[in-house]
């Protein structure tokens, strides 16, 4: 099921076209195909569980903050009582001073102190905030939502379905993610592209990277694993008498071994053989990687980012001009003890992203890498005592050397839960910007043509803009 056939088909098409004098029309098509020059990578950072948007970007002018504080009084009390959480008092919030503050009138924003590293990136123009992003089929109002008119995504507020919808524009069971769709478009435009390393996950299998043509490669924080029975000569015996055995075992595990005739066994066989083969190929490249002086932790979230940074450090040897990466961090489903749980996660994510930026700058790759955040959903503005419940839209960060930073894009809601920004009085934010617009803006930078973006993002045509402007093109 790999893309080989299609690639061969494309190569044959080119050959036929040249021979048959059809070159002009084909060149016309090429001009409309994706730009695959240079190197670019997208890095999706997924906040599993659904990060509380109301604790990411907080209103900081006195009037807005007053309404905000009224709707989550219990939670703010819990923050004030917490020994570890940073203050959520209005004047303790880190001021966010966007270059485009004019479009927000008198509205002022702040970030919690846990996100200070991200405020540094924002102020240096290396990061932007996109407000009110979420899955949408078409723009929708509260009136329409309450009346049941207008089309909304299925299974709002369900974790797994909204993870899938963010990643793949459909509920669980969707097979193709928009990261994978982007790479499908790239592959079609550049048949010479090596497909083994185009979609790379450091956080296990996720539908975001699945394309209709490309396999997904999983990297480990510890670097590419080796098969110990083959590499550790002490196990079978250091004597050369076992060299033939080792060679035969390797062939057995990397070959497309015997078919059983059973669909599951044969699928497992393919995944095992391909996984081992590609890992061995990556291990050869990885062995010659440069040493990073930026220190990313060997555990947890930073270790995932480190594995991504290490792969990007050998990008010139991957024969892959475009890559999409996936990293993830869990624990954001803060129904309870949000002051204790979320604040620790915020420090982890903000420090990790800043260190990843440092590594990219060190590698000279920051202008070619764009990191963006995503999550199941935002959370209720109204609290449940010491936590928050499932919402819809949320605020997200985009960081990279090619970001038009220090600006807030999208929308930022008022804190009146009875107002037009929310589905109901618990304060579940109706997105003002669709995930597909967010994706399309990234896709434009990545090199996709408008037509390719429309092909990858089927609801994009329902929105007035296919480019939110947060990327330098």
């Amino acid at each position, binding site marked *: 099921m790999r893309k080989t056939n299609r690639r061969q088909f494309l190569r044959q098409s080119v050959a036929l076209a040249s021979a048959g004098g059809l070159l002009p029309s084909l060149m016309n098509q090429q001009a409309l195909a994706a730009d695959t020059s240079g190197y670019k990578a997208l890095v999706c950072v997924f906040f599993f569980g659904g990060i509380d948007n109301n604790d990411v970007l907080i209103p900081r002018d006195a009037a807005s903050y007053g309404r905000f504080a009224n709707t989550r009084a219990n939670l703010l009390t819990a923050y004030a009582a917490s020994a570890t959480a940073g203050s959520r008092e209005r004047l303790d919030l880190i001021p966010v001073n966007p270059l485009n503050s004019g479009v927000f009138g008198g509205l002022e924003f702040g970030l919690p102190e846990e996100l200070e590293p991200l405020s540094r990136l924002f102020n240096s123009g290396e990061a932007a905030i996109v407000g009110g992003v979420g899955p949408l089929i078409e723009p929708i109002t509260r009136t329409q939502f309450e009346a049941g008119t207008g089309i909304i995504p299925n299974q709002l507020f369900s974790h797994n379905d909204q993870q899938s919808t963010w990643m793949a524009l459909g509920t669980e069971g969707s*097979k193709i993610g928009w990261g994978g769709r982007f790479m499908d478009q790239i592959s079609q435009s550049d048949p010479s592209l090596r497909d083994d390393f185009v979609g790379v996950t450091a956080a296990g299998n996720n539908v975001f990277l699945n394309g209709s043509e490309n396999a997904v490669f999983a990297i480990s924080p510890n670097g590419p694993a080796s098969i110990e029975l083959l590499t550790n000569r002490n196990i079978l015996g250091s004597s050369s008498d076992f060299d033939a055995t080792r060679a035969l075992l390797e062939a057995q595990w990397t070959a497309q071994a015997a078919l059983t005739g059973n669909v599951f066994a044969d699928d*497992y066989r393919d995944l095992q053989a391909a996984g081992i083969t590609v890992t061995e190929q990556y291990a050869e490249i990885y062995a010659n990687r440069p040493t990073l002086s930026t220190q990313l932790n060997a555990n947890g979230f930073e270790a995932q980012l480190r594995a991504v940074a290490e792969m990007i450090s050998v990008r010139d040897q991957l024969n892959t001009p475009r890559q999409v990466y996936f990293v993830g961090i869990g624990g954001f489903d803060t129904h*309870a003890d949000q002051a204790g749980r979320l604040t620790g996660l915020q420090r982890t994510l903000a420090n990790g992203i800043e260190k990843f930026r440092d590594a990219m700058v060190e590698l000279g790759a920051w202008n070619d890498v764009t990191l963006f955040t995503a999550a199941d959903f935002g959370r209720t503005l109204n609290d449940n005592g010491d936590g928050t419940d499932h919402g819809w839209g949320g605020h997200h960060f985009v960081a990279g050397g090619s970001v038009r930073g220090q600006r807030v894009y999208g929308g930022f809601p008022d804190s009146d839960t009875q107002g037009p920004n929310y589905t109901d009085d618990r304060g579940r934010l109706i997105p003002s910007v669709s995930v597909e617009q967010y994706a399309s803006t990234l896709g434009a930078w990545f090199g996709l043509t408008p037509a390719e973006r429309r092909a990858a993002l089927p609801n994009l045509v329902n929105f007035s803009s296919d480019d939110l402007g947060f990327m330098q093109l």
Partner: protein
Amino acid sequence: MTSGHVLRLRSVLAATLLSGMLAECGGSGGDDATLTPGTGTPPPTTPPPTTPPPTVSNLIEDAAMAQRFLSTATFGGTQAEIDALVGRDAAEWLAEQFNESSESYGDRIWANVTVEPDVFFSARLPSFYSNDHPSSLFWREAIGGNDQLRQRMLFALSQIIVVSENNFGRDRSHRFAYYMDNLYLNAFGNYRDILEDITYTPIMGDWLTYVNNRKADPATGRLPDENYAREILQLFSIGLLELNTDGTPRLQNGQTIDTYDNDDIVNLARVFTGLVYDRSAGGQGWLRPMIFNDRQHSEAEKRFLTTVIPENTSGPDSIRLAIDGIFAHPNVAPFISRQLIQRFTMSSPPPAYVERVATAFESGSYTAVNGREFGSGQRGDMRATIAAMLLDELMFAETVAGKIKEPVLRFAHAMRALEIQDVVPGNENDLRDTSNTLGQNPFRPASVFNFYRPGYVAPNTTSGAQDLTAPELQIVNSTSVIGFLNFMVDYVFDRTPNGGTGSFAVDYSRWSGIADDPTALVTALDNLFTGGRLPDEAFNDYVDIIDQMPLRAGQANDPIKRIQTAIVLVTTSTTFATVL
């Protein structure tokens, strides 16, 4: 407390505590004889349909059939178990397993406790806990226990009603064991009891954040936590879409139908307010159902699905009525049956198979071909459901698409078939956390959504092109396949750091007489691990690889290396990765 179910389970565990702490551990807890039958939903007014009488015999004709059956119903058969099953009816084996004695996980922990209760509950005992945390105890029973079907059921239920041990320090073994016992002791009981009992467990209250959940407060605008309300519906009972009895979505004008909307969640959330830990018995409250702080239980009406709980209904009554209402939903039978099938026998069961099992769940009874009857006749009976699942005609057909074995099943199966000696997981550093090595640690999925999703379809695969669900492939990738291979090599070549205790040792002398006959060696291992299902090409490759391995004069380990290499080949084969 007014709920009979909860009192019942609490009584079992309270007795366990007394006998286990102060007297010799007698393994008394958990036998179904001490459990009263479920008294869940009143029987429907019209008798439910019964599963059509099966016609395909459950007679185990040969060793290959025996090996396959044991791969579905246990953590894998030993050679002796395979041989003993040949010529028997699987229904009789099943009846024996339903009556196999069991020992609660609480008891297993108390058996190792040598201090007085006050000390136990006031002090942290890290050395004890670090070695005998619950998943470690589970490994011991999965590999060495006799109540194999009940242990398989515990593992299956733990993947439907999920709590992750990751979230709880290992100094909380007793709390986690109490959750496990709710699944383990109820494994052959009634699903309604499981739902109600699990709702009261302190660790679920903590995991899904409804312990200390307070009623709405108009003054501050606070509303109840919706977490448990949402997940008990979406994951533990009915799912998101209305289903036919065969597990396929019901359609209306070509569209699926949601089972509930957000108003149902907001209302059901009121039911799960007011629950608090039972602190009346100190730390022993962790081993008891949560109790109510009546002042924090919502007095408001609770209206969800087709249930209306009137204003001013007490907490225990609200939960009882809510569980009744949820359990009465027709989705429960197909929703739970399909997931059980996926954990035992088929990754992508055909709808007709789901319907047969769901019908047994509905009727609460199942009669095998040989006349053996299973189940109490109560809707939700797990014995009837399990019997319908394991004795189904599909499982006795010539070939079946079968199931991909998750890594825990593969490893436990390998250890059982190898008949390892001294099963002391607590001595095994490699079993402390197998999430990133084996690729799965029992009871430690990343979230309440388990290790993988029941609806997962693997991209760019043949099964995916056929729209077959393959949950277990969700955790197969380039990193995990190598991790599993290395994990097996570590155990087969005895490279696990176990402090020289010798646990998990394999006696390879079983095969030393045929180490110089590669065909005989691979045949023996093929029969043991796959029921002789290796494809000819793989079989011949393995024979060739073993055949060229040296047997040098004076090198006593050379025959053992042949045996070990052959075992690694068979246990990392794609045939062993599946139940066919």
